[in-house]
């Protein structure tokens, strides 16, 4: 029996040895993209197109591996040592944190690619149930009594921070930048939140699959995806009068790619997002492309809306400090 057991242990070690050597062989031809929640479908398409292109240009086959999760959590994983070649996260703050904590990439990363390293943009819209039974048209309607709102937690979700800031931008404009009134509006809004999930995709599942809530505050791309995946007969998209320009940035994690020898392909991968093909794929996945020509082509899908930007909040570092750190405004209003 012990002999058998020893054999068994040896057998396991051999197997694990084989599998890890297999893995290292594969690693030379792989790229790891650590991304946030709602980009699963986008990067599925991008990866396929890029692998094809790369094969044509260089003759190399490349496998792109994906990891998805809440933006903050994913940034944390990179800091803790997941060997990402590129990150494609929900907001610049999370990539700043990587640069700050581990200096895996230069602090001026945002200037290394066009458009502040954000190849596509999105905005925040409402998803309501078919026929819009609660007659939700704008942010005002979300603070009414008996309206149940679904949005993720801004402390953990990048998308949720955009939601929060979009609502704030609206309330500040309506209240002529009176902070007390704006905070009262936000307090009422978050008082109406029925489920505060930790990630954007979790909130979508709560609203769409579990049928909880009257309105989901969501990324525009996530809202369209819900329509297409679950059925156009069940939901409607409402675009509010004012929203925010969400710019999900991308960056090469230079220290990792240098170590792994994937620098060239990682840069090519992110540049591919800016090509016409890449922009077309982004638009098809309901991200607003930067390329004007392609944006025009999809203009029915992307209604023009008045957009606040993160600069109105003094940039991400400032917004994070005022609103989302422990003991910040969000903590004060959501208790």
């Amino acid at each position: 029996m012990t002999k058998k057991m020893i054999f068994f242990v040896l057998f396991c070690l051999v197997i694990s040895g084989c599998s890890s050597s297999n893995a290292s062989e594969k690693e030379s031809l792989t790229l790891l993209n650590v991304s946030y929640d709602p980009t699963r479908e986008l990067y599925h398409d991008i990866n396929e197109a890029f692998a094809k292109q790369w094969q044509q240009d260089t003759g190399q086959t490349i496998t792109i591996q994906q990891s998805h999760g809440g933006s903050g959590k994913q940034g944390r994983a990179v800091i803790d040592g997941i060997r990402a070649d590129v990150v494609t996260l929900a907001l610049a703050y999370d990539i700043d944190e990587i640069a700050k904590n581990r200096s895996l990439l230069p602090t001026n990363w945002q200037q290394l690619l066009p458009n502040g390293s954000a190849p596509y943009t999105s905005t925040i819209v409402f998803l309501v149930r078919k026929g819009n039974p609660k007659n939700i048209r704008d942010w005002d309607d979300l603070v009414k009594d008996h309206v149940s709102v679904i949005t993720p937690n801004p402390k953990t979700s990048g998308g949720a921070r955009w939601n929060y800031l979009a609502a704030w931008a609206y309330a500040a404009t309506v209240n002529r930048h009176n902070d007390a009134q704006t905070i009262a509006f936000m307090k009422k809004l978050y008082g109406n939140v029925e489920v505060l999930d930790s990630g954007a995709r979790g909130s979508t599942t709560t609203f769409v699959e579990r049928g909880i809530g009257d309105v989901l505050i969501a990324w525009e791309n996530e809202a369209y995806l819900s329509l297409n995946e679950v059925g156009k007969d069940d939901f409607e998209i409402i675009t509010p009068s004012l929203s925010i320009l969400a710019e999900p940035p991308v960056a090469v994690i230079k220290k990792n790619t240098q170590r792994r020898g994937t620098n060239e392909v990682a840069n090519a991968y992110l540049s591919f997002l800016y090509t016409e093909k890449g922009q077309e794929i982004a638009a098809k996945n309901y991200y607003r492309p930067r390329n004007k020509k392609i944006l025009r082509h999809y203009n029915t899908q992307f209604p023009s809306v008045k957009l606040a930007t993160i600069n109105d909040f003094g940039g991400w570092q400032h917004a994070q400090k005022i609103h989302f750190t422990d003991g910040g405004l969000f903590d004060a209003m959501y208790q």
Partner: protein
Amino acid sequence: MSATLLPEAPKQQKIPKVHNPKTPTTTKEPLIVQWTLIGISVAFLSLFLLLPLAMIFISALQKGVVVYVEAITNSEALSAIKLTLLVVLIVVPLNTLFGILSALLISHHHFKGKSLLLTLIDLPFAVSPVIAGLIFVLIFGAQGLFGEWLLNHDIYVIFALPGIVLATLFVTVPFVARELIPLMQSQGQAEEEASHSLGASALKTFIYITLPKIKWGLLYGIILCNARVIGEFGAVSVVSGHIRGLTNTMPLHIEVLYNEYQFTAAFAVASLMSILALLTILIKNVIEWRSKEVSS
């Protein structure tokens, strides 16, 4: 076992005397109470055990057998299954070995710090799996205790197989040991002492005396350990990094599929895990039945 059976034997003989259809005993409830109690337990079991189980299989097969087969044979699902089985192959033997050794130590020997060892073995039961995962991030993460050294030597522990193995190992430490310790303590070591005094070596004593005595308990512990290794979610989720086709185990793969609106595929993989669980229960019952037969 046989010792506990003996005192009951006289009772069984008495029963026919007391039992008389004309004078109902105090233990005999009215028919309506009996049926209500049976009804409640059956309803409860069907609602909370059978219905969810059935729902898994119904949802899995909702879009037909072709979709089902595709869902469990595509490359991401296969790699998740492979990874899970690989973790089982590494973790279960190691914890079996540790379980046997620690149980031998604790039940057959007296030493200082024995109760401390017992407490330590129980620790994984008390600690939340998420904390277990975080411990390893703190030790092996890039900013952790050994982070810098590991990075400089290109050794990947967390967000790779070793991290998943370590986290699972931690969570499943108590299963075999906890099964064996009370068993070995109650059995005593008279036979082992006899064997020693006749000149048998420790290894020989273990193989010919101890192992046959504990084999059913041991198997039971291994099965419980195995079930937990396959199903562990929390600790693995923290250290896995969720890289598809590389560090997603079966439970993590199910979560990924569910979050991608692939509900049928998610339930297909879930049904595969349920089948594994059902098989485990089946084997467990066979073992219980066999061990009873042996001991009686």
